[in-house]
């Protein structure tokens, strides 16, 4: 299963490295969202700084929808789904591989967005260790839930509109928990919030959706 996962993750990342959709479209889109927030919320009054953690994670969530949609689209053309099924790869491995590839892209995106938030929103970086753990665990959950729902919506004619409707309510807890944990690390939120509890919630979310994906990906791939 792990070998298959590595194979699939390597394939997806190679496709991304060559097609550059993630770097040329998804990443600029996420940065654009950050800039749009600055237009909407008066930049001078420190609103951006206090809301920075939440805005950052909203931008990540929107980018996740695009990244996942792209990841699912890789197999939807040219009978890719059938090829994947015939390849003899373990479906659980395929799921973990695709989720892993999405997670790697999201982590890279979060690094760039993090720098963007510091520069554009005039934020003092603090609590980097907590932030890194939060980002990592949240990304795992986002990638797992995203890949699973991406498979649910893939190949359907209306997937572009269906995927956000399916995925965004599901990952809303990630937005909430990751924002609270980030605020605790940065010291911008309500005083006395324990980042650990929220990171624990993020970890539980990631475990549930990784397990659900490992179980459900087989039946989802098998369909005719």
């Amino acid at each position: 299963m792990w070998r298959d996962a590595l194979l699939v993750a390597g394939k997806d990342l190679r496709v991304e490295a060559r097609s550059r959709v993630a770097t040329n479209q998804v990443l600029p889109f996420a940065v654009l969202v950050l800039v749009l927030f600055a237009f909407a919320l008066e930049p001078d009054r420190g609103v951006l700084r206090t809301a920075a953690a939440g805005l950052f994670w909203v931008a990540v969530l929107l980018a996740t929808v695009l990244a996942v949609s792209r990841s699912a689209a890789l197999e939807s053309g040219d009978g890719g789904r059938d090829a994947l099924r015939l390849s003899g790869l373990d479906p659980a491995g395929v799921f973990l591989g695709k989720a892993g590839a999405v997670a790697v892209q999201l982590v890279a995106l979060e690094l760039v967005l993090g720098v963007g938030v510091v520069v554009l929103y005039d934020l003092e970086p603090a609590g980097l260790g907590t932030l890194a753990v939060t980002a990592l665990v949240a990304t795992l959950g986002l990638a797992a839930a995203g890949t699973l729902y991406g498979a649910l919506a893939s190949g359907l004619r209306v997937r572009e509109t269906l995927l956000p409707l399916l995925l965004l309510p599901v990952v809303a807890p990630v937005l909430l928990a990751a924002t609270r944990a980030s605020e605790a690390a940065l010291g911008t939120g309500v005083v006395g919030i324990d980042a650990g509890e929220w990171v624990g919630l993020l970890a539980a979310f990631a475990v549930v959706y990784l397990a659900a994906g490992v179980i459900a990906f087989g039946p989802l791939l098998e369909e005719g």
Partner: protein
Amino acid sequence: MTSVRGTAVSLALGVAALVSLAATVGLGLSLPTTVEQDDYSRLIAIHPGLAWASYVAFGVTALASLAWLWPGTRSRTADLVAGASAEAGVVFTALTLLTGSIWGRPTWGTWWVWDARLTLSALMLALYLGYLALRRVPADPDTRARRAAVAALLAVLVVPLNHFAVEWWRTLHQGRSLQQLDPGRSLDGIFIGAMLLGFLAMSLVYAWFVVTRLRTLRLESELEDVALDLALTERRAEAVEALKA
């Protein structure tokens, strides 16, 4: 072929639902007003019952989805029951939020608070609206049923979370309604009676919804088949005409 008219079962369910609903409304309106909440405490006759019915509905959707995914029990009926039950559940969730909001305004002083139970209920509504959207997608019925079943099993995780939210997080919403049945709790007998009658009435309304919707869903799919046959016959007739000419 499915009969256009309802069966004796659906008729009996409909009558029972109407009678119990009327009794709930009657009892609810005859409840005494309370010092703290004035008239609004009477909402106890319907609000917990609506929430209960939405839980039942999503639970049935999950069970029917499980039945569809299990090869031994796979049937078109299981898929249709899941869909019909989720539709009813969405209606009940929306009504729960609506009546809760009407109740919250005079007692909490606000239509809406971002409290764990309210937020999770809203999330539950969004999840199942997504589920219903997935069911409406034009696709092969088996593909659609399989994906809908997986989505339903993922979505149902929120239901227990929502139910116990009032205990796990400190919320403005009061504790679980059924716990009020313990002796020594603050809720008066007549209020508990009205609430339990509400549970019964909403369950019957739910059951009638599902039975009726199941019939219309069957009729819909049969109509599609008839229309397809008709179209095929017409095209064949056209081909014959073209050959003759």
